[in-house]
């Protein structure tokens, strides 16, 4: 475990700037959101929610780039010290993932707090449990189901790109090449577990608000509001995301162990 601790430290020292920048941008989003003062509760709420959704998407993109710097590391042979260490391959990947997801969680909780504020301003009556759900649970859900597998996928792609470029093409590389389709199928399949797992519904205060703002869809695709605030949390999604991430990390670890340096 000393290895993981050291790798996390390395990750922190290497990515400190990015983390601070991203978390610091919460100030920017807050400022932008507070500047919106349209007429009409509905428009204001819609626009603000859109901004929060965009902020979340930007967070995913920024963290993907942060984690994708592994490619530059490999190009400059900076990774050699890590590659030849006795530490197993998967820990190198897990450490990068843990740090990025950790930063993402803090960022997402910040956005969740902003979402709570936005909805309070729009008149939603939010009880204590709703606040917790908005501030911590929903963002965490988004991080686990979206960010985590995305970052694992970015790492795998980077490793694949570097391993394939060199002369030794392992069976891992072939599988990864074809993995795009099966992986998404797997994810869809896992979602089928949905039916057998409980579901966690949204804060009642928000549902009330939606009902009051007539004509606003509370569920389904394309709703700007529901992108920021999921109506229901499917545990199947969480299980699927964790399994998918596990698979991607496993494949990445194999590549790491076998790639030529």
């Amino acid at each position, binding site marked *: 475990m*000393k*290895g993981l*601790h*050291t*790798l996390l*430290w*390395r990750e922190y*020292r*290497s990515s400190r700037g990015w983390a601070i920048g991203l978390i610091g941008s919460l100030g920017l989003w807050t400022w932008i959101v507070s500047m919106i003062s349209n007429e009409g509760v509905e428009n204001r709420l819609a626009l603000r929610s859109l901004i929060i959704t965009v902020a979340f998407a930007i967070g995913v993109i920024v963290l993907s780039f942060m984690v994708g710097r592994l490619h530059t590391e490999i190009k*400059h*042979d*900076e990774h*050699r*010290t*890590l*590659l*030849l*260490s*006795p*530490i197993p391959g998967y820990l190198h990947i897990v450490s990068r993932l843990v740090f990025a997801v950790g930063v993402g969680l803090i960022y997402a909780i910040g956005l969740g707090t902003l979402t709570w504020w936005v909805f309070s301003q729009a008149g939603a009556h939010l009880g204590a449990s709703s606040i917790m759900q908005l501030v911590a649970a929903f963002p965490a859900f988004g991080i686990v189901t979206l960010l985590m597998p995305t970052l694992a996928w970015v790492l795998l792609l980077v490793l694949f790109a570097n391993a394939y470029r060199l*002369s*030794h093409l392992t069976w891992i590389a072939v599988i990864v090449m074809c993995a795009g389709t099966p992986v998404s199928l797997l994810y869809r399949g896992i979602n089928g577990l949905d039916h057998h797992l409980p579901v966690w519904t949204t804060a009642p205060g928000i549902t009330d608000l939606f009902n009051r703002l007539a004509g606003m869809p509370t569920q389904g695709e394309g709703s700007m509001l529901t992108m920021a605030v999921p109506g229901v949390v499917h545990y199947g999604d969480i299980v699927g995301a964790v399994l998918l991430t596990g698979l991607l990390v496993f494949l990445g670890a194999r590549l790491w*162990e076998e790639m*030529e*340096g």
Partner: protein
Amino acid sequence: MLAMLDDVTKVYGKSYGLRDLTLEVPTGQVIGLLGVNGSGKTTLLKLLAGLLLPTRGQVSVLGEPPRRVRSKLVFLGETDAIYRWMGPTDAGYLMSGLYPDFCPQRYLALLDSLLVPTRRAGAMSKGERVRLRLAMALAREAALYILDEPLGGIDLAARERILQSIVGQWRADASIILSTHAIAEAEGLFDRVVLLKQGSLVLDALAEDLRERGESVKSTFLEVLG
């Protein structure tokens, strides 16, 4: 036998990096790997370190593929970079966490004798970075030290210190194989010299045997490859 390349060929696309090369590395020996640029020295050293896989033949260190026993070997590459934000203390912390055989006291002593400054790597000169990496490498208690051009791009005074450090760190239960162009200065270090030419081994001799015949390693090099 500590390590071995057994009839190894390494092909890059259409060209041969190494051709049918067999080399045995016994324990306790210092081997000088010599040859002009492109003769296959880096390829050989990377194969020994498990950073490359042979196209044909077998590489083994302590009887296993090198990557499997990577905890017992040290590789110092020519192109290796350290993270620019790392200073010597950070590097020491990283090494202790990653490598159980890293000796912090020896590391401090090496930083001292190699005159490594306390800046971060990004603010060091190329030569200072090489010396930092050398300190990181030699502070480990490994069985096989693989050094690719440890004297490359270094000024004369620093080269002396580096040679002294390498000499000082030698142990009877370990082996060192290093490549260099600074033959005249470094030849005293070698028990044995191996000359490569266009991917093939053209000479494998004990240094003192060459001198018994009135040659030096340098004169032999010029004769064989000139």
